[in-house]
């Protein structure tokens, strides 16, 4: 389904892509388009505050109204996780234990997927209770993006495996696999570490139990093509091709989810032949009423710039073609590069125009 049609019919539109391809801009421009007909929220889970920048609106962890029919949320996953812990932990003692743990302090290192876990919980609540017809999600850069889609399954599995009990409270049958591992850990690491890890896992395990329903719901929503559409944003650049292809393969093969469209952003279209019509310096100087030496410098620079532009344009064409070949059957949208960076609503409006005409 084309991106334009998705914006009119899907509840959840997700943009995936590697870092630095302008995913946030594309998500925001799509949100502008969607908000013309539907009540729309654009959610970014990218830790860089790029959405806030491109919206020209300072955002925090609160939902901000950008214009009529359009809200934006730049999710502060750390604050949202604090809130979740408070909500799901059994008692205030548990809350304190978690907050004081060194694992919590460096949670994104310590517990892979924690940001995605929080994002997924937030997204669930926004879909269920936010009152939006369309939610557009700008995911973190690619490997994280795949984590975002996979986090539900992973968490369900961790929870089902009963990791904590298995590792640290071995039963008679699991003594070899579980108890032994805890012993090995205790031998090679400091004992405070093992105790802290066990405690942290125990309290988080309780949170997982409570989160399970939401997590399972989101898994169903993401895998339901009548409600959700996934799109990939790519740069027409060398590194982007293998990274984007791998992302596409992971999503379509490993997760077996469909990808609807690929947006090739900041594309340098090939120049028509010709360029400047008057190449003779003195003739051009007379035409434009400028000093001859300025015109000569201009012509020299025009030659250099044209050569470099052609170089980039040729590369872009080649990489875009490779992307097209690798992501067969997906809608391709090409957004030409615009001079200057997009840093306000007017700039976003130009991107929207380029995307949707």
């Amino acid at each position, binding site marked *: 389904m084309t991106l334009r049609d998705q914006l009119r019919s899907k509840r959840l539109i997700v943009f995936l892509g590697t870092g*630095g391809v302008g995913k946030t801009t594309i998500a925001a421009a799509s949100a502008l388009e969607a908000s013309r007909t539907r009540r729309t929220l654009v959610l970014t889970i990218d830790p860089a505050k790029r959405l806030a920048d491109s919206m020209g609106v300072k955002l925090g962890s609160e939902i901000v109204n950008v214009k009529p029919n359009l809200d934006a949320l730049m999710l502060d996953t750390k604050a949202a996780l604090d809130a979740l812990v408070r909500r799901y932990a059994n008692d205030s003692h548990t809350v304190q234990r978690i907050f004081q743990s060194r694992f919590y302090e460096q949670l994104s290192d310590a517990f892979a997927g924690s940001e995605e876990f929080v994002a997924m919980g937030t997204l669930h609540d926004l879909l269920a209770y936010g009152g939006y017809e369309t939610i557009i999600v700008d995911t973190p850069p690619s*490997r994280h993006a795949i984590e975002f889609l996979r986090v539900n399954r992973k968490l369900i599995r*961790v929870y089902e495996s009963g990791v904590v009990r298995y590792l640290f409270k071995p039963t008679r049958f699991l003594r070899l696999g*579980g108890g032994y591992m805890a012993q090995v850990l205790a031998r090679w690491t400091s004992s405070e570490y093992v105790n802290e890890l066990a405690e942290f896992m125990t309290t988080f395990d309780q949170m997982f139990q409570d989160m399970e329903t939401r997590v399972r719901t989101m898994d169903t929503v993401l895998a339901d093509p009548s409600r959700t559409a996934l799109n990939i944003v790519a740069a027409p650049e*060398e*590194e982007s091709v293998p990274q984007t292809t791998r992302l596409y393969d992971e999503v379509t093969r490993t997760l077996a989810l469909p990808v609807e469209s690929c947006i090739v952003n900041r594309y340098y279209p090939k120049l028509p032949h010709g360029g400047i019509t008057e190449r003779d310096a003195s003739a051009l100087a007379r035409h*434009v009423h400028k000093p001859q030496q300025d015109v000569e410098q201009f012509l020299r620079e025009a030659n250099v710039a044209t050569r470099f*532009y052609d170089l980039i344009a040729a*590369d872009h064409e080649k990489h875009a073609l490779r992307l097209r070949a690798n992501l067969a059957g997906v809608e391709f949208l090409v957004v030409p590069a615009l001079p200057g960076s997009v840093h306000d609503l007017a700039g976003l409006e130009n991107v929207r125009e380029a995307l949707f005409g």
Partner: protein
Amino acid sequence: MGAALTGRGVAAHARLSIILGKGGVGRTTIACAFAVDRAVAGERVLLVSIVMDEDPTARIQHEAAGVDTGGRLQLLSIDTRDLVDDIVRRVTRMGTMADFIIRSPSYESLVDIVPGVHEMALFHELEKRTRGEFDRIVLDAPATGHGLHFLAAPEKTSRILAGPLKDRAERLRSWLQDPATTDVVIVTLAEEMPVRETIELASTLRRQGFPLDNIVVNRWLPRVFVDEGPHAVLDAVSKHRLADPSWVTAMRLVSAQHSEAESHLAELRALDAKLAIVPLIPDSSHRLLKVAEAMKDFVPNGGSGDLAPRSRRPEDGSGGAEPRREGL
């Protein structure tokens, strides 16, 4: 030169050059160019990449086609997960029982939850390989994650480990922080986000004691239509419709990109690091050598800043094939 490579009694060990950079800045290109150049210069080089990131083999075949590295360049792709599994097998000393652990879902969760375990396994492996047949190991560092998190892993893990593993982590940390053994290079583009991240990374790395003084600014564009004169002519050409409008837009794109790059370059200069500016070079069979040429006054080697290929030095009768032995 020899002193830089062999310095401080580590003559038998390979230097480690860590090439950091976010996805999309051309980190792999720079790592490949550096590795090829060093091999051409006579060093025996191991270029290490991480499985899941780009495999440099095809790139070197295409972009350094016909370049004679004298068989001195080897490529190695590492899956850190395999390394972790191997270490677990050895540490637990459980034989086939270890496979039972490794295949269990709890194991995966456990490996994910211990901070820095993948990085530690990688550094452990690289450090072992410095005592092999190489003069230099070039690491095309993982694209994901913050470069700092990557390099700080031994320090972080040493805080939670005990016994011999703790000692090992501490030794790895000193190895990574010693300018006599390790170079850290950040590759960036002169664009807003990459530069902001580079500045942050560079200052944190320095604060934590890493030898950082090398930054490569990749894909540099020429300075055009910046001066008042040519700028005004472009405006006039556009106004009088003396050129195709799409051509004028193209010129403004290149000009804007350069001007933005200039301002970001100024920010990078304030870091007081060795900067190499690599122009945008088209994809061709000679690209890697051209990239290396652009970095020639810069190369990280802990001292002399000399990238001039040794084999081209007339006085070097051996063709510089055995630089590691120069200090012996």
